[in-house]
């Protein structure tokens, strides 16, 4: 990484612990169909299959690849826990993640391919565009949300117990009782 590269990195907008991260590419002429096919294959890989909830990068909330402008452009848009620019070097040394992206990036302009990680890094940073506006409807990191889901599932299991109403009568459990009615 050069000093010039560093200066070019814009941290992007963030809401609480989460920051937005968007990349925009130009599809190579004639590569739209194979790119769509690559994205369709991606959708079938573990983590991207409907209901998997297991993206390889566990600190992103969601990921989408969007072909637009008659399949001449490609966008990759995500939300990342933490300031993404701090983790850029990590991304570029992560074998599995990089391999997955390599299959997609091969169809867009400016990509020279692995194994030249420095070139890939420069290519990705060159495609990043900071959002002009960014908002979220819930706070919390992926880790916190997963924990909240586990806790809620446990709470629902408690409520399904025949003696739940009786068990929740203790004053210490009042905040849970307040959430138990619906």
């Amino acid at each position, binding site marked *: 990484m050069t*000093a010039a590269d560093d200066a070019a990195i814009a941290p992007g907008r963030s809401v*609480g612990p989460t920051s937005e991260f968007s990349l925009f590419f130009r599809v190579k002429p004639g590569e739209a169909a194979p790119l769509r096919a690559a994205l369709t294959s991606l959708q079938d890989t573990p983590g991207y299959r409907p209901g998997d909830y297991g993206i390889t990068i*566990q*600190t992103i909330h969601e990921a989408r690849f969007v072909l637009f402008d008659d399949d001449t452009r490609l966008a990759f848009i995500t939300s990342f826990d933490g300031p993404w620019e701090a983790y850029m*070097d990590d991304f570029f*040394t992560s074998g599995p*993640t990089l391999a997955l992206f390599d299959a997609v990036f091969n169809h867009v302009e400016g990509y020279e391919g692995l194994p030249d990680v420095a070139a890939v890094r420069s290519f990705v940073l060159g495609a990043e565009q900071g959002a002009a506006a960014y908002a979220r409807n819930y706070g919390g*990191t992926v880790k*916190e949300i997963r924990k909240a889901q586990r806790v809620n599932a446990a709470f629902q299991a408690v409520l399904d117990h025949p003696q739940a109403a009786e068990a929740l009568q203790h004053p210490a459990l009042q905040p849970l009782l307040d959430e138990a009615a619906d």
Partner: protein
Amino acid sequence: MDATTGVSLELDDIQAGALYERPSPYVGTYLLLCIRDRRDGRELVRRLRRLVEPATAVGPVGETSVTVAFTYRGLEALGVPQASLDSFSPEFRQGMAARAAVLGDTGESGPERWEEPLGSPDVHVAIAVLSPDETQLEQVAVRAREAHAELPGIELIWRQDCHQLATGRTSFGFKDGIGQPAVEGSGRPPTDPRERPLKAGEVVLGYPDETGDLPPMPVPDVLGRNGTYVVFRKLHTKVAAYRSYLRARSATRAEEDLLGAKMVGRWQSGAPLALTPDEDDGELGGDPRRNNDFGFGDDPRGFKCPVGAHARRANPRDALDHEGSVDVRLHRMIRRGTSYGPPLPEGVTDDDGIDRGIIFVFAGAHLKRQFEFVKTQWLNDGIFIGAPLESDPLVGPRDGVGSFTVPQRPIRRRLQDLPPFVVTRGGEYCFAPSLSALAWLADLDT
């Protein structure tokens, strides 16, 4: 050539003190000098060059070492050409005081409250002399003093002595200096058999790093190659506040020790919680073959070692391996911490007003992704462990108060109203050049 790694480090050109461990026990002195006259500055560098030992000159155990490093302002004062100055890392060019907001050095730790002259443009040359005993230290310190004393254009502007406490531990009472990464080609074996030695370029400029590339290096080559960035920070430790906090939340001395260990991730002896979660084990703590041989992967929820404990934050080891977003090897640090000030006597919980703490020293090729990343993402923040509002319980900055979660069955314990226990008194980003770069600097004729 290192037979096991195939890496050939030019050890005869690398400052020994920048690459190797300090002695233990140790005494030492840190000096900061201001270059008022360029010619005297270059003469100073010429003399210091003769005091600095290359990494080939030291034995397997720490010996007396003199390490010389320069701030951006120092290189400027020596007349290093602008194109060369511009080729240093942006963080180094800015200096630590300018990075304060990023680093969390605010409020009581803010540069406006730093000890003079730390953080000022007068800090040009940093010299560290570390020795196993007072006699050897004095011999070298006299030579270091002679190097600058007769030069009217050189002013000694700060001195900080340090020494290992009689306990062999930090002012907080913990054995430290454990868990250093090994470096390919350095000839020193790893203490953590689970961690491959780091690529040389993680620590020394001019060699491939963990990304497979050469770290960005200042020009010309003779100035950058075999050099390393050095961070030093004077950190005041609020030992009385720390002890009072633990005592107020513990029914027994044993509980106090356990809470302290949960915060640090190790017991006072140095024994890691990951290996002995319920009680201290002095033998384990003192055994360098075992006290760094562990991971956190078998303890994702932190029942043995809390995910927010200091040592686990500073080096998560294998704890984040499955997350696909972090390569821990990119964020390892060579640390050379030393203690200053007298210990607070055992059992005392009232502040005696005496300054004591740690001179934290980092050596590495990447200020941003090593020192600054660990400080900002892992110590100051809790996003990465799913607790954005928690910072490191021991060294985390807290303007007001914070919390710390100790996972335990049946119910986690959450320590509230955690005040700051460490205050930054000042520091600087420096560059420790190679021996040939020292000669190049001395011979500048700009």
